[in-house]
């Protein structure tokens, strides 16, 4: 059986007259979704596959789909006659646009047979002359197919049996997962290469055979690591040939891969006799090659020519190319891809040193794959949007650098000396102390937050943000939120426990414990719930540390913001004084040393409630109290004075009493704030510090650790009372329940019940990170002064939507912290924070 090989990502053009059997052939060898047929598109746009007036519209629609498929990297077959050169030209241009290979499959069926078949098809009654004309055009075009751009032309006889085999592209090494040592531009620095390989744990292992050209030197890693060279092995340096030999032999023995650099290609062209300018260090290579004979030179050229433009490795997670690579070119093959890999992208201008001005493709890079490249010497490797340039200019007296993958650490050896003088001095580029990523992140891109989004999180798979929610979030974020550089976390919403079965109560501890029991959580931590305002406090050791870690230049050493990201303090001096007080506590508790961190992110409640909610209290809570008390007292007096209305009195008495309780409830959370000393801060999560998101710690650890912090400033910091409870131990549950009753009878808001582990999974996925159980009196502020009279109506509450929201927000919150701590680009952190804010605009019963 004949085997036809085509690239796995190809644009296949069927070429043949009407009735030649193209469609039948395509259906046999390709999936239905891979075939775009002009006939069926005519049908789709005009309800008639034979309607020739619909041809232009049909092709518009066909090409629209084609582009979508090619952009996604899917092989596609165009089932149309394609007998005219202009039809095929459009196919070739489209293939080039998406960097995939055009393939022509010519179905050359005799005219008589085509005409015979068409006669049987009612929609193809266009007469024999049409088929004859098509076949004439087809034959005329056959010889030119290759010149048109079809490197792969196959002649098909539909009656023949054959197999179509899809061949991976050379650059596809996705099945190779490493570990890798990716090594920067060598430029003949063989001594530095040997030193670096040794440092990386490689051993020299001479080859058995003897080759005059390639010698015996090769290297091998005891742990089976593989080296990948980013190209530019040659020119400028002292030992170009040695470099070529080592790389060649390592590839031959399967311990290395190598992509070509522009210098390598230029040398290859020189070896093959092309007219190239002998400068930029080519002269050094030529001097070394001079003694080689013709055969050896040919072999050298052959080796250089065999290098593949770039590699896609580790399941698509890693891309190595000499000058970097845009995402849409990963794993593709075209002249443009090869050009980019060798030379990168330039703006067409030159700088003051006469070097081409490079377009910073990495600044726009948003791909998942990590891209490692070289080409342009930099003082030190720096990550930028998951890409890194590891050419640290060994030949210019810099260093030779390797990136260990997947470890992602850099290993460098300094150059023995400056072998060549760079056109542009190799020195730190700017006085800006911030990293390249921080400089780039100075301003965020709108495209990274708007529209419908899917955010991948470690805890909860993908979280969907609907467009209308991001529209709402954009306004809030822009108008009210603090600078996104500081905004590394927003807390999730919290669900209450299910409605209590206990009479007279809407919420009661039983249901909270039951929830965790049902989800397989044995131990919980019950924490007193403070009634203030949620506050995220970020404190750096000083302004300089803040600048370094958060990439800010606002002179602030910390911030305090609300659960929607608003600055807590309008006055920057007040914020600074507040942050300073927390900083002093961290210092007194020796947290800087203990956590070896220059910053902390704390999740807290800030009291009094009236400090931030004053306007709300005056407009709503106190206002209702004032109006209600006045109205109820007056009606009470009027009824008492009217014998006929005596029946109305008891209800009035009850309402008056509940109104007084209501006023008492909100008053507890109000006190005047005249200075910093009037605030109370209750930290309850030590969220993150350098290198660590403390989500792997238990809630008990968080409580105990923060108690140590609170002890250093008891007049300001509150050590939250808590109880550790085994939900399966009735006596412990009873003790915690009576503690809650005492707490709430005394006017407390209630408690928050959290699983012992900060992150807990149960049979149905993520367990709620916390449930609140609010006191009977406190709930008057939520459900109205006399809600206790209406309990039967109020019992109908649906907590599931709230819990689903809480889980998604929790996952996003943890994700944002993890991304920040991992040093990911700000947009990746901001995406999650923005997501939490967007989710908060979902309509959920605000009383839950």
């Amino acid at each position, binding site marked *: 059986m004949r085997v036809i090989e085509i690239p796995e990502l190809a644009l296949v053009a069927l070429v043949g007259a009407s009735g030649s059997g193209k469609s039948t052939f395509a259906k046999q060898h390709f999936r239905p979704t891979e075939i775009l047929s002009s006939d069926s598109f005519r049908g789709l746009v005009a309800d008639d596959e034979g309607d020739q007036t619909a041809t232009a519209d049909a092709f518009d629609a066909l090409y629209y789909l084609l582009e979508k498929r090619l952009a996604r990297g899917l092989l596609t077959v165009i089932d149309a006659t394609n007998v005219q050169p202009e039809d095929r030209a459009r196919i070739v241009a489209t293939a080039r646009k998406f960097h995939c290979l055009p393939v022509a499959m010519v179905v050359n069926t005799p005219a008589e047979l085509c005409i015979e078949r068409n006669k049987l098809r009612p929609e193809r009654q266009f007469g024999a002359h049409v088929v004859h004309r098509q076949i004439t055009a087809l034959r005329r075009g056959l010889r030119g197919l290759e010149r048109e751009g079809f490197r792969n032309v196959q002649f098909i006889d539909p009656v023949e049996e054959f197999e179509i085999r899809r061949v991976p592209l050379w650059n596809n090494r996705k099945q190779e997962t490493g570990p890798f040592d990716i090594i920067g531009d060598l430029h003949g620095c063989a001594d530095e290469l040997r030193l670096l390989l040794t440092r990386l744990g490689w051993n020299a292992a001479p080859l058995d055979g003897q080759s005059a050209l390639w010698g015996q030197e090769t290297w091998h890693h005891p742990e089976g690591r593989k080296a990948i060279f980013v190209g530019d092995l040659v020119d400028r340096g002292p030992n170009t040939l040695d470099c070529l030999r080592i790389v060649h032999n390592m590839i031959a023995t399967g311990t290395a891969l190598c992509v070509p650099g522009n210098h390598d290609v230029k040398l290859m062209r020189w070896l093959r006799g092309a007219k190239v300018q002998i400068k930029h260090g080519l002269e050094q290579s030529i001097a070394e090659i001079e003694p080689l004979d013709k055969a050896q030179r040919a072999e050298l050229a052959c080796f250089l020519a065999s290098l593949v433009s770039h590699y896609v490795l580790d399941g698509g997670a890693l891309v190595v190319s000499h000058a970097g690579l845009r995402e849409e070119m990963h794993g593709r093959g075209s002249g443009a891809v090869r050009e980019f890999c060798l030379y990168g992208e330039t703006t067409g201008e030159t700088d003051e040193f006469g070097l081409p001005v490079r377009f910073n493709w990495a600044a726009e890079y948003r791909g998942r794959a990590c891209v490692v490249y070289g080409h342009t010497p930099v003082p030190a490797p720096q990550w930028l949007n998951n890409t890194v340039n590891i050419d640290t200019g060994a030949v210019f007296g810099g260093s030779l650098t390797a990136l260990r993958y997947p470890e992602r650490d850099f290993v460098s050896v300094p150059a023995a000396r400056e072998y060549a003088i760079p056109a542009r001095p190799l020195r730190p580029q700017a006085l800006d102390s911030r990293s390249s990523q921080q400089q780039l992140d100075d301003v965020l891109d*709108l495209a990274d937050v*708007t529209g419908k989004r899917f955010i991948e999180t470690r805890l909860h798979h993908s979280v969907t943000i609907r467009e209308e929610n991001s529209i709402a979030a954009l306004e809030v974020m822009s108008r009210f939120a603090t600078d996104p550089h500081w905004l590394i976390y927003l807390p999730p919403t919290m669900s209450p426990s299910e409605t209590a079965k206990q009479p007279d109560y809407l919420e009661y501890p039983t249901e909270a414990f039951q929830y965790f029991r049902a989800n397989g959580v044995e131990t919980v931590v019950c924490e007193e719930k403070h009634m203030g305002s949620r506050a995220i406090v970020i404190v750096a050791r000083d302004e300089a540390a803040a600048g370094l870690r958060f990439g800010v230049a606002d002179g602030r050493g910390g911030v305090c913001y609300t659960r929607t990201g608003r600055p807590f303090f309008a006055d920057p001096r007040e914020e600074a004084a507040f942050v300073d007080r927390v900083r002093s506590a961290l210092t007194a508790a020796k947290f800087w040393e203990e956590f070896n961190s220059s910053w902390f992110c704390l999740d807290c409640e800030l009291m009094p409630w009236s400090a931030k909610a004053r306007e709300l209290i005056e407009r709503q809570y106190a206002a209702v109290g004032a109006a209600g008390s006045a109205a109820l007292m007056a009606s009470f007096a009027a009824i008492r004075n009217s014998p006929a209305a005596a029946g*109305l009195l008891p209800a009035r008495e009850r309402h008056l009493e509940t109104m007084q309780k209501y006023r008492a409830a909100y008053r507890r959370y109000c006190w005047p704030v005249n200075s910093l000393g009037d605030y109370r801060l209750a930290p309850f999560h030590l969220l993150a510090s350098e290198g660590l998101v403390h989500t792997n710690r238990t809630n008990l650890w968080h409580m105990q650790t923060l108690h140590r912090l609170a002890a250093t400033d008891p007049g300001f910091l509150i050590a939250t009372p808590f109880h550790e409870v085994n939900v399966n131990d009735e006596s412990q549950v009873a003790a915690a329940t009576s503690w809650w009753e005492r707490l709430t009878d005394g006017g407390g808001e209630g408690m928050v019940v959290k699983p012992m582990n900060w992150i807990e999974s149960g049979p149905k996925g993520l367990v709620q990170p916390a449930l609140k159980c609010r006191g009977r009196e406190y709930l008057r502020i939520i459900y109205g002064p006399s809600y206790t009279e209406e309990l039967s109506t109020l019992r109908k509450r649906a907590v599931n939507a709230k819990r689903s929201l809480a889980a998604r927000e929790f996952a996003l919150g943890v994700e944002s912290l993890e991304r920040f701590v991992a040093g990911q680009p700000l947009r990746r952190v901001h995406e999650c924070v923005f997501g939490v804010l967007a989710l908060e605009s979902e309509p959920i019963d605000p009383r839950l």
Partner: protein
Amino acid sequence: MLLSITNAGPNPTDIGFLLHKNPANLHSAELAFGHAHVFYSTPHENSCTAHLLLDINSVELVRGAQQLDDYVNDRPYVASSYFAVAIGRVFGTALAGNCQRRPDLIAAPLKLTIVIEVIRARGGADLLQRLFAPLGYTVDAAPIPLDPVFPEWGDSRYFRVTLAATATVHDALSHLYVLLPVLDDEKHYYIADDEVEKLLRHGEGWLASHPERQLIVKRYLKRRPSLVEIATARLLEECPQPLDAEEPPAAATEKELERPLTLHTQRLSMVATRMRELNVKSVIDLGCGEGRLLRRLLADRSFDRILGMDVSHRALEIAARKLKLDRMPQRQRARLELFQGSLLYRDTRLNGADAAALVEVIEHLDPPRLSAAERVVFKFARPRYVLVTTPNREYNVLFPTLPPGNMRHGDHRFEWTRAEFQSWAQATAQRYGYTVTTEPVGPLDETHGAPSQLAVFALDNQVAA
């Protein structure tokens, strides 16, 4: 929730006939939103007090009819449109001016004292006075403190109001029926067209000549402009010689040509004029709000591409409605584009316009975030011209109603003096390779300058982009 009417006339209990409620009994009626009760205080020799008590169940209103969205609500306790509905139900006969058993009493004025226990008077004691005094009442409005435990919070927006007048019960109830919702200014039901009829019926004989007629009509009809126009026109028929002869008929209020131009209008026309002078073809209005500048630019054919960006989706919807986007002719529609965006995020949609306008926008940004906005505009979007206006703080002392030290708008994060604005403009121009000139906007005061200020930035061609 409690209203008391006392008759201190010669036959105090006559009021029982007029209200159609026997003073000896408790009268209860069920309403859609609760219960209304009428009862009398133990009668005195020389006075008789009837009470109307309204029980509103806010839990029902939140969960059932969904008229309210918060359980913690003042509606059960204040005199509001709920109260007017209750008056209509329980005192319907009296309100209609009927009294079958004692028709002789209908037209007889009584010596009435009306106490509204709690009312949220939007407009304060002053408005209470302006509404009731012209109808012959002496008005006593006692503010209710927000919370006696926190005297520093001051008074609430609620009043206990005592009205005294010699009037017929019919008139007094009509006044209350119309004016209670007007004072409260938050009607709980949808305002349908028959609301005009109701207003005219209950306002018969007093509303047309009331000096606050405009305000009453507007608020009663919840500011639905078309209904306001109908009602006003019909009131004017009723009273051909309006007392307030200078008040133009409502239909003409849109014509503002004769009036002095507002500051904002001057600002917009100045920006539009400068744009024209700069000879630019495409303009982007950053922070276009409801589209007033866009409308001016659209009127000038020399601008062939006009973009409006705002961070508020709601503002853009209003802009689309006001500009009648869906009915705009295709040619004109093609010149205009509205989209939501933010000055704090880099956005390629902002690129490519010849000129950008930021009219009264920057003062709405927190100072620490201003630099991000500068970069978005001057570094990334980089139009040839940028026009920025912002208030001049020095001028604030000349606004009589603005308390000293206050900013002009609750959302302003800062207001600059002329010097501050100029130094910002110069520094920004220098940093991003622009040249800049600033100029005053609005009437010039010798000491304090003009109320607003404009900076025109021009991209310096000498500096590479």
